[in-house]
């Protein structure tokens, strides 16, 4: 049933989205949203959405509380009321920035509108459907491993009290079969991924923390956008210096190696993975490569270009290369790419000077709608 409050709620969400839109540039360039990501939502600190009042400053104030402890002990518990309570929230209204959960879809939509990104036309419509169990209810029968302890205990306690078996001196509660309660589940079906992003990053000595931070922020937004375009999305992470390996997300962002750079090693691995796991007819494939543009030798660069031309480009939607500016790198690689593959519209290159340039780079990468 439609509720009257839905209108007010929609207004509130609009205001929140407006605030996010206003601050989008800042969120992007300062990486504020990293680490705030839940499964489908990201929690965003929105400034000043509350109504200002003449009110007391907080820290000077302190207050009175109730519980165990002696002077000097930290005060436990959060502000806010316990269970129950009337509608009015009253005294404890928080003064800080508001944290609002926005779905990644909404965030992607805002990003799309702000940067005027075109929607992507997916190739192939392959959909895989998988079953997933969710524990949502309680029932009277089930396997022991799913027994709900608290409910069972309560039922047993109730029975013992009402039948007079309960002895407060020796409060032993023994559940019988009728007392037992079990969790029960529903099966839901979900389509699984049909797009994959392959992130490749140069982790050689010349890539510093600043450069990696840029890659991290940029990949968050790329992820967000592509996720909104495909139901479910898989990611593959590859790091390389002179040799390449596949790693998990965490390692991807935090590894720092030293030594030389052979970009071809990463492209080779990328190609292997695509061949083995993501056949081009079922998958939309997005390789992204980030580096400071320093490659070991001209020979290796040549090899990269032929790998791209012959093996990778034919199977992917597009290939994106982002070059992060670094004080140590020569920045040659992007020039080579442009020289040899500049005319191929599946190749997109972008140079990212600093955090403020991330936003333009995202636009370059995603602006083609592939």
């Amino acid at each position, binding site marked *: 049933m439609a*509720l*009257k*409050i839905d*209108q*007010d*709620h*929609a*207004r*509130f*969400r*609009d*205001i929140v989205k407006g605030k996010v839109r206003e601050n989008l540039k800042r969120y992007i360039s300062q990486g504020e949203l990293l680490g705030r990501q839940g499964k489908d939502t990201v929690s965003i600190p929105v400034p000043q*959405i509350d*109504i*200002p*009042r*003449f*009110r*007391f*400053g*907080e*820290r*000077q*104030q*302190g*207050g*009175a*509380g*109730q*519980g*165990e*402890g*002696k*002077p*000097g*002990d*930290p*005060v*436990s*518990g*959060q*502000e*806010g*009321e*316990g*269970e*129950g309570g*009337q*509608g*009015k*929230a009253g*005294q*404890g209204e928080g*003064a800080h920035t508001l944290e609002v*959960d926005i779905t990644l879809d909404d965030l992607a939509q805002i990003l799309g509108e702000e940067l005027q990104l075109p929607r992507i036309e997916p190739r192939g419509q392959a959909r895989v459907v998988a079953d997933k169990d969710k524990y949502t209810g309680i029932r009277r029968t089930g396997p022991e491993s799913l027994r709900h302890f608290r409910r069972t205990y*309560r039922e047993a*306690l*109730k029975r013992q*009290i*009402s039948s007079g078996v309960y002895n407060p001196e020796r409060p032993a509660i023994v559940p019988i079969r009728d007392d037992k309660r079990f969790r029960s589940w529903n099966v839901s079906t979900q389509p699984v991924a049909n797009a994959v992003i392959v992130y490749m990053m140069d982790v050689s000595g010349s890539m510093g923390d600043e450069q990696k931070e840029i890659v991290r922020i940029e990949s968050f937004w790329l992820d967000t956008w592509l996720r909104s375009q495909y139901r479910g999305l898989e990611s593959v992470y590859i790091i390389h210096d002179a040799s390449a390996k596949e790693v998990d997300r965490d390692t991807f962002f935090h590894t720092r190696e030293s030594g030389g750079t052979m970009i071809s090693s990463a492209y080779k691995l990328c190609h292997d993975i695509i061949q083995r796991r993501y056949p081009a007819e079922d998958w939309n494939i997005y390789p992204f490569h980030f580096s400071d543009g320093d490659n070991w030798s001209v020979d290796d660069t040549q090899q990269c270009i032929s790998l791209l031309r012959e093996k990778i480009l034919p199977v992917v939607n597009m290939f994106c290369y982002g070059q992060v500016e670094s004080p140590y790198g020569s920045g040659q690689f992007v020039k080579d790419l442009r020289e040899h593959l500049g005319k191929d519209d599946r190749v997109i290159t972008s140079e990212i000077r600093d955090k403020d340039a991330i936003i333009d780079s995202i636009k370059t990468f995603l602006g083609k709608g592939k």
Partner: protein
Amino acid sequence: MARMGIDQDLPEYLRTWQGKIENHARSLGLDFFPQVFEVLTFDEMNEVAAYGGFPTRFPHWRWGMEYERLKKSGEWGLSRIYEMVINNNPAVAYLLEGNSLTDQKLVMAHVCGHNDFFKNNFAFKITDQDRRPPESAEDLVVSRKDRLPTRKWIDTFANHAARIRRHTERYGVSAVEEFIDVCLSLENLIDPPARMLEGRAAAPPVDEPEALEPARLKARGYMDSFINPDEFLDAQRKKAEAEAAKARRFPERPQRDVLKFLLDHAPLERWERDVLEVIREEAYYFWPQAQTKIMNEGWASFYHSRIMTGYALDANEIVDYADRNASVLATNGRSINPYKLGVELYRHIESRWDKGQFGKEWEDCDSLEDRKHWDLRLGLGKKKIFEVRALHTDVTFIDEFLTPEFCIEQKMFTYAWSNRNDRYEIDSLQFKSIKDKLLQQLTNFGNPFISVEDGNYENRGELFLRHDHHGVDLDVEKARDTLKNLYRVWRRPTALVTTVDGRATLMRFDGREHASKPMR
């Protein structure tokens, strides 16, 4: 109300229980308005709660924000609303669909307590819509059993909503919403004590000077009527009066009902004035509830416990009831649970008056041993707590009845922010500081005292407010934003004098920028 009334008539078994519980409550001495219970779904309950208990409220995003918060904390299992009751005649209360019968009985018992409190506590007389100017001090506090006041607030709030919707249609959503934001930002600037006395003949002016004696030119007696002719004296008198009028302040004395002052004197459009009026009416409606949170929740909990354990519970419901009751009364360290503090304090008072632990003899007794076993078997407890629930608000409740014994028994403490450890820490277990802290939190419902001092500041038509500083500074950031909102209403520069870090400071907003400078 129609939406809720159609398919959700109270089921038979609940109606039966309502009757039983109400009869029992009456036999315990509770005296309440007729009650209407409605069953709501989880979402509807959150909706009503977000609207502050009302089925309809004027449209505004703030309710949407509250709705989101409630819904989330309900879904995450952090908190759930079990009970809500509106101070209205008849009282309207809500039950959550799908709750166990035990819970529903508990809620009904609890609601009887609230409803009795609404009807009998003096602070709620401010919500009588047929209120007449009080003729004596007694009129202010005593409720007559035989007279049912008019409190059709559900209708009133629905009318408010209709008024504001009409303005929205005419002037656009954003214009109206923006102005409501401004008004809500000022809604705590009201003066309830003054409102209670409203309509009473104003006290005679204290030191109104005698009719002005016009300045005369010196003259011998017989020449006087020639040298000081009547026309001349009249002119002189007029001049003196004009000067006196100029010196007269505007407002004549500081006015704490800032909203009223704005309604009377700010250059508002008609619809703006209407919106401001609505906000002010509603602020006054909610005021007594805010003033009596501890007493009200305590009273309801005190009586739900009496009714449930003494009458309404079936043996097999005891465990569920105890579980629920414990979670309602649970304390969590940092904040006072009004339910817990209130119910314990009533029990404390009842026991003291039953045992005669009051009066001069008790106060003068120094022997701990004697005090411990003090019992005169007076049995005055019940009478006393009924009197307390009629004549006090939270502030006087705590001030009068919080005792050192109670604080020890209830493990109370004060806490403060520790800069060294960057956290809140327990500060003291001393009775005096606990009481001071509690009172400070409660006075004016935790709002600063702010009044209009001058509506023509520096003779430039600026609005000048004063904050009565009682030890705690204002949140400067918020104060700035509020001054800005005030400017939107007053349309001339606004200023506030307050104390920041021990220094008197004048904050001013001139329409473009904020300034802040020390006051002489």
